[in-house]
């Protein structure tokens, strides 16, 4: 079962949330971030090339122009491969764990999987981010030493940064699955 809804992130950009219910014990949430805009790309390229041309008129060295082209290309490739995240996915599987995947604009995917035995709870937290107060969803990990303590807080959807309404949807679904988990502890 699959459905798609659109939300907005903390800066007002449009996000698309795709929910897939594979089975009562497995759900996936996929947030698509706004794409790289042509306007900003053109603006940055023009700025860099104008600066390079300005330096060239000062120094009369044509290496500066080739260096500027080189830097622009490398910078764009680096940005697409290491910085620009296209999609963030949260896959929650009952009794196996929670998996977070970020896919970059160049196609690279980076995945983290947290086993269910380490997950204490999934909560929505408030944080002060620059001049705003924002909400973010995070996974609390158990502390192996102290049974009621928390060893780590892992935030989810860090680059998409959706607003509270989107987070509430995801939170409710996750809590339904975690409730199964808590209701049926390890069988003897």
């Amino acid at each position, binding site marked *: 079962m699959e459905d798609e809804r659109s939300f907005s992130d903390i800066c007002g950009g449009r996000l698309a949330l795709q929910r897939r219910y*594979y*089975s*009562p*014990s*497995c759900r*996936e949430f996929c947030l698509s971030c706004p794409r790289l805009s042509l306007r900003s790309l053109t603006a940055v390229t023009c700025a860099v090339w104008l600066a390079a041309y300005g330096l060239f008129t000062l120094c009369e060295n044509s290496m500066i122009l080739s260096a500027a082209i080189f830097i622009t290309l490398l910078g764009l490739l680096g940005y697409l491969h290491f910085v620009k995240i296209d999609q963030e996915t949260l*896959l929650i*599987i*009952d*009794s*196996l*764990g929670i*998996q977070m*995947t970020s896919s970059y604009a160049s196609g690279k995917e980076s*995945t*983290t*999987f947290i*086993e269910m*035995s*380490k997950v204490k709870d999934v909560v929505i937290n408030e944080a002060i981010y620059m001049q705003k107060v924002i909400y973010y969803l995070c996974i609390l990990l158990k502390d192996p030493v102290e049974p009621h303590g928390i060893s780590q807080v892992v935030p989810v959807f860090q680059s998409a940064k959706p607003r509270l309404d989107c987070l509430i949807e995801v939170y409710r679904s996750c809590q339904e699955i975690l409730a199964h988990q808590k209701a*049926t*502890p*390890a*069988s*003897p």
Partner: protein
Amino acid sequence: MVLKAFFPTCCMSADSGLLVGRWVPEQSSAVVLAVVHFPFIPVQVKELLAQVHQASRVGLAVLGTWCHRHQDAEEGLGHFLEGLGAIFSHEPWLQLSRERGGKLWSCKATCHQGPPGPAAPDEDQVMLVFYDQRKVLLSQLHPAAALPDRQAGDGTAGAEGLAVVFDTVARSEALFRSDRFDDGPVRLSHWQSEGVEASILAELAKRASGPVCALLACLLSLVSAASACRLFQLWPLSFICSKLSVCEQLRHRLEQLTLIFSTQKAENPAQLMRKANVLVSVLLDVTLGLALLSWLHGKDCIGQLAKALVPVADVSWSGSLVVLEHLFPACWGHPDCPFPAQWVGPLPPVCLQHVAEELQHLLQWLMGAPAGLKMNRALDQVLGRFFLYHLHLWISYIHLMSPFIERILWHVGLSACLGLTVALSILSDIIALLTFHIYCFYVYGARLYCLKICGLSSLWRLFRGKKWNVLRQRVDSCSYDLDQLFIGTLLFTILVFLLPTTALYYLVFTLLRLLVVAVQGLIHLLMDLVNSLPLYSLSLRLCRPYRLAAGVKFRVLEHEAGGPLRLLMQINPLPYGRVVHTYRLPSCGCHPRHSWGSLCRKLFFGELIYPWRQRGDKQD
């Protein structure tokens, strides 16, 4: 809890049979290792499982049945398979089936004992997780989960979660030794059933490595015994050896070679990786060293280098003598003058002479009005002449060496056979020896400045009427006599007005020294890089990423209504940064031991700095 069945992808197209594997009750997961095909005799299957259990300490059992049939095949097979549940009793009993040529999977788990209560898993709650058996067998999880000892019995204490799956597959190698060409009593399907993997080269290398390692280990132990003999502990040799970085590097190289050729087998994967890393790093080093050697000898670079250093007639040497003559007209020709009126003997090497010339220009500039600052004339002249005389002594020292330079360079070039790092360390030592005069100037300037600062601080306390109480380790007030105050104030004034001159000399020589130290530091950094980079691990991560696993990742496969949830478990490789961090080799240990703050403080107070101390040296 949902029941998870881990199924190997190699058995997806196998014929119908029995599922053999391990049941982990704490996580409600069944790890299927192989499929036993018909015909079989149940007693023989149980014997095989008992054998594997003894060899690997992993509790295997028959977990259920696997049915791979055509869509419209008769139901007889299905009933037969259900009947097998009575022979091999196992809780819960799995029944996996797949339609041949289709995509319909079905998975059932039944509990025979007890009434079907709310805890009985039904079809909706069984999950199929496919895994690549070969990759899971060969991979190593980081951080290595606390895997139980091979001899510690069956316990799963310590291995948690998915590490259990890796552990089970890795330890059941005994089950995977037979392939379908063997004529054993039981026919199995697993990742090696198409033929056991082996490599002729690897086997030959293993056979040959035994005697070769023994021989080389003998030779290396002789070499290390010779180097540890009492002769090298005597004072002059031990002092020189501790100052030269070549000796440190040679010692490090000897340790590395001893590790590679040791006859002991590696006990755990970490040690094996370390051996492999050290071997690859030594090979790369020697290759680069041989390339450097061939380049040096090929283009006759050594000859050209020696010619540049060999004495040649040069106008600028006599030119600088003329300058000196004008500078000290009073003492030129005087019997006590340290500079000879004409130079007798072979002329000094060109490039070193160029450096000496530059230093002389610098000292002359300092003795004038450097950067417009007004210096104390008398002190300036004294210090300037003292350093010029020192420079003259150094030129004479180079003179003594000049006939032997080509031969020394040629022999030193040969040492590149031992590796690029040895050649780099020799280069660093040569730089240190050739800039010895800069080091001496720095020490003189620093000591002078330090004395001045000490004197100034104590006289400043006197100026204010206080003194340092050694007993209480603090500053106390003190009543001085009039004559003490008079002399103290006089000395304080003298020192304050002489401070700019000394400080300037100190500053200039410290900057020169720091420049030399920076160059040496770069060379050491390069050496450290070659020594400590784990190249084997990095290339393994590049070419066989599944061998170094940071974890796992799951992908949901096509889901049909009414069928079980199917997931594909793949290995998540370790990121490059963590590979380097985990498998970094220990380097020579030449790290700067001062933070920037303490370095600045030492420079300000004139304390001597030794930023590139070798490991094991005492602080001065």
